[in-house]
């Protein structure tokens, strides 16, 4: 396909009118409200629902909520999450009644694309995309966050305590007269 080149008109060839037009835009902005921000001294206010870095959360009693089901690892599009399951011999979960928690949980923040699939897929409400958007470090290794770091950054989450509810239910039934 041949694109036809339009000849410039005389007005356009004069050049100066276009320059003046440009300066007019600049001048207009001198008298408008500033849109820039003095980052990093001045920080941006993160709106609710913002998808920042994913962190693990603890429940009201400070226990790990994650049960190492590895659905986030499976769903993660850039494969940023890596979970080491506890295996048969590792200790039981710190939260009563749930038998399983991750031995190690790593998120490579360099790989993470902040899509929020992990939060969406989590059956335990244990991982949330929070408000951190500025993740920096001097080395690549530092940006692979391990379980301790993710839990420390994630804080507490006041959600339902599924396993605790179940434990209470079980306890009530122990009193029920069906014991042999």
């Amino acid at each position, binding site marked *: 396909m041949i694109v036809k080149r339009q000849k410039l008109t005389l007005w356009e060839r004069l050049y100066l009118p276009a320059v003046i037009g440009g300066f007019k835009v600049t001048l207009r902005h001198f008298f408008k409200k500033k849109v820039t921000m003095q980052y990093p001294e001045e920080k941006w206010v993160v709106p609710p629902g913002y998808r920042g870095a994913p962190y693990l959360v603890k429940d009201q009693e400070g226990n790990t909520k994650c049960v190492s089901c590895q659905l986030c690892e499976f769903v993660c599009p850039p494969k940023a999450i890596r979970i080491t399951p506890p*295996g*048969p011999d590792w200790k039981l979960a710190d939260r009563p009644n749930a038998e*399983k928690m991750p031995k190690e949980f790593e998120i490579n923040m360099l790989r993470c694309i902040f899509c929020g699939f992990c939060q969406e897929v989590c059956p335990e409400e244990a991982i949330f995309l929070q408000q951190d958007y500025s993740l920096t470090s001097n080395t690549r290794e530092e940006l692979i966050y391990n379980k301790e770091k993710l839990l420390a950054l994630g804080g507490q989450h006041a959600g339902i305590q599924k396993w605790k509810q179940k434990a209470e239910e079980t306890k009530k039934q122990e009193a029920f007269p069906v014991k042999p």
Partner: protein
Amino acid sequence: MSQAATTQSSTPPPVEKITVKVDGREVQVPRTTPDPISGRPIPTTMIQACQAVQVDVPHYCYHPKLPVAGNCRMCLVEFGTPALGPDRKPVLNPDGTPKIVKSPRPAIACATPISPGMEIYTNTPAVKQMREAVLEFLLINHPLDCPICDQAGECKLQEYSVDYGKAESRFVEPKVHKPKRVDLGPRIALDDERCILCTRCIRFTRDIVGDDALGIVNRGSYSTLTAYPGKVFDNNYTLNTVDLCPVGALTSKDFRFKMRVWFLKETRSLCTSCGTGCNIIVGSREDKIYRYEPRQNDAVNSTWMCDYGRLNYKWINREDRLSHVRGPNGQRSGWATATKDITERLAKAAPGSVAIIASARQTNEELFLLKKLAAKLNALTDSVPRTGEGDRLLLNPDRNPNSTGARLIGICTDRMGEQIPKIAAGIEQGAIKTLIVFGEDVTKHGISAAVLGKLETLIVSDILPSETAKLAHYVLPGCAHVEKRGTMTNVKGRVQKFMKAIEPPGDARPEWEFLHELVFQVTGSDGYRSIEGLFNQMAQEVPAFNGLTWATLGDTGVTVPT
């Protein structure tokens, strides 16, 4: 079970075929099928007729290799039979077809025999409602532990709930809670809450294994699976109940919480722990083996495998695997240098001064290449017998997976190991100066370290470090069976192939690859560079394997006369 296997392999007497209709499709089904336990003919059931036309009828308690229990009610279907008039003659429709009377009640497909002209309906609105209702009942007390349940991903309850279940639960009462983490046996952990009481495990251990160890106690919602008091569920086949369990009630202590099943790559392979050669599926992820599971092959292992073979995989991921080619005095070497050096040494060796001790754990192809090498060098060859206690089901007293192959290829005679004293004496007298050892620690089998010290050249290929490998002039790191492809011949002469699941560590290479190079350089005759070609060449040259090709072996192998 062995009886059933033989009845299947020998030609059974012709069975009368009857015609039934499944969802409007006509199918010819034998009137009787052999009982999975005794092999006696028993009436064919509706579920088998449905399977014949690939119509999937959901089921929990039914298993083709177990006696029918009919307790889960998941396979309920509707059916109709030809109407009979008062004269016991079929009533015909105006168009001449037999009139079908639909049964007023549904029937369980797994336990209802078929009759001529029967019509089975598996997708009527009533059937859908029944499935929904059965699932609702099964889920009443099911704990929804899926995030922490090892069965998640291969759970029939999950699958059928998605396919046939209701989206939401109407059950608002608290669920009945039962014991979790029950220690049922040394290899089995039981979660009673998850159990749907299908009794597959009970029937398996009673009727297949003959160890009546399990049973259900209590009533109604409180029914609980337990081992009989004072009995431990510890026979050699307990882990099959984990495969059989449609939910996550019975879990393997070995595999517990190790990896979610959807991450595992499944590779068709063979168990190499005894001469039976059970067909297996290897579950691996990122070059690590997580589990073995049996794969159906009615000519070998039905759908079972023994715990001994199933748990015998941990050595593959061991840290101290031989992973470097080493030359004289233990220095690091490379494949090209080592092959060249070995070729030179073998070329200089006088005929008869070389002996080869192969392993009956090697593949047919590797033994075939070693035999070629032996023929060229006029070498004595033998292998090391390995025996243990067998049982009546699957475990064979011969613990070598390929003794038959070694015998058929001519590596050893019927009395495996009879040449080893001769080889030892030959080394002692100085007649044998070069010894090639594959996959065996000969210091434990009659050739002591002192005797090995007298050799001019000791070439060892092995997977794990051994005394023999320590003394070797050349160490060639080999592969476990899950790291290469090949074929093995089981005790009954079944030639079966296995596929590669993971990458070998370090320099390690499949033995057939470097043996092929070595044979080429020593004998000067080139062979095939692919395992398929190599197998086909072996099939032409070894009389016992004549007529076989890699392709015709299929997934379940071919039996050759032994």
